């Protein structure tokens, strides 16, 4: 089981969600985060004081998938979230030992089905 964590531009959330649904993935968890990277932030202005917002709004999509779906998942996210511009984001893949569905207590791959 792997956890795929994708940090994407907020307005791409909908498309990524649909791409994942297209793979039959039925669950995911989304968090509003702030990203810092190569993409330049915008400046804001208050009464003559300018300052740069370096932390840009991003969406983190976490989805735990069975190993066999991993490759497709990553690919689907890349396809859906890419605009070719700085700041499109990253995908991180990491190991997950186990998953449990709280409602039923089931664990393993069946819990994330």
């Amino acid at each position, binding site marked *: 089981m792997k956890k795929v964590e994708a940090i994407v531009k907020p307005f791409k959330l909908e498309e990524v969600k649909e791409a994942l649904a297209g793979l039959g993935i039925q669950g995911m968890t989304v968090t509003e985060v702030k990203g810092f990277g190569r993409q330049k932030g915008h400046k*804001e*202005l*208050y*009464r*003559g*004081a*300018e*300052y740069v917002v370096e932390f840009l709004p991003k969406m983190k999509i976490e989805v735990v998938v069975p190993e066999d779906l991993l490759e497709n998942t990553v690919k689907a996210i890349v396809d859906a979230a890419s605009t070719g511009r700085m700041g499109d984001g990253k995908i991180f893949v990491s190991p997950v030992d186990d998953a449990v569905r709280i409602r039923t207590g089931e664990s393993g791959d069946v819990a994330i089905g």
Partner: protein
Amino acid sequence: MNIRQGAKPSYPGQVRRACTVLPGKRAAIAAVIFLAVMALPGMAFAQDSEIDSGDTAWMLTSMVLVLFMTIPGLALFYGGLVRSKNVLSVLMQCFGITCLVTILWTLYAYSLAFDDSTLVTNEAGETVFAFPSSFVGGLSKVFVNPNNIGGLSGTIPESVFFCFQLTFAIITPALVVGAFAERMKFSAVLIFTGIWVTVVYAPICHMVWGGGLLSLWGAMDFAGGTVVHINAGIAALVACLMVGKRSGFPKTPMPPHNVAMCVTGAAMLWVGWFGFNAGSQLAADITAGMAMLVTQVATAMAAFTWMMCEWIKHGKPSAVGIATGAVAGLVAITPASGYVGPIGALVIGLVAGVVCFVAATTVKNALGYDDSLDAFGVHAVGGIVGALLTGIFAANTLGAFSGTVADIDIVKQFGIQCAAVAFTILWCGVWSFLILKGIDLTIGLRVDEEEEIEGLDISLHSESSYNL
């Protein structure tokens, strides 16, 4: 030499109206009443009929409007500009000041400002300089009650005049909050307010509107350029210098936590300010109407100007900018409002917009003091602009730029206005310094750094504003 004025109190409305070109219906009414009284001597209702229900209706409304300026208006304007961890502390300060000043005004401060029974007049019946009556009022109106405040003041009940003036006494120290927001102790704010209203506000108010020194000089201040705005703005400068910068200033950006709240507050200030300016005529007449008109014009012009300054300088106009510009315009037109005409008001708005923009951005950044919400840059600077330009645009001899005051010597009046401004700066500056110094040496002005970083809402009030 000491002839008491007796039954002819010199209330501000009357002092000020003395030099308006349109004596309006007041004179007419007086004439009618005179005739009526002549014709029907002894008629029981002669005195009662002096009250004018229309004037009273407008003044009741004006009081409500000016209170509306402080709570919620100013509270939201300032509250939106601070960081979210300090918003309640600002709201508390506005509320606390409102309560405290109301209580003091009732107990004694109104008397210090407006009890004119100690004024000294010469043989011609004109008020003349004397000590202390040219600096502060008497004590016959302390502990106000139906016996000392149950009658009329001009054409309106004195109770309404009391309330109207009270709202001015409330908003003035509340404006100062903008300078020390986000770091001053709440207890220190209350103590400062109590003393400051007693030794700065009430005396200056007496000197300008209660028959005191500045009115003897002939200073023109229709609705409070000196009394309210320069006074508040200078206290603000002194306060922000003495309280010190906010931790992190100017390196850490401290953007407004809720610009929409701030703009809402600015809109309420704009709306309420008509009570302030048009209400200062103390009547619903032609002068009040013109005061309303010029207030609207100067405010719009100053807001537009500030916006254009930003657009030109930074490439983009901002909401905080247009709102601040509006306030700057409102401040600048305040002393001028019953005297100048609409085109003069346009000019005042233009000048105020540019000058306050420079003061609140370039100058502040250059000098590096931390006037958190620009109480000095907007109120002192705008108030001075307005007070000086009043001396010019009041004259009714400037064609389309005319005001409504006849027989005005522009150069001389300009000089008087300068003197009045200088006097107010001095009086207010010195006293404000002394009061703050005293507090600093006793209970201290400022919360400690940990409290400041945690935010005053939690550290002083055990509350946080938003639990969304």
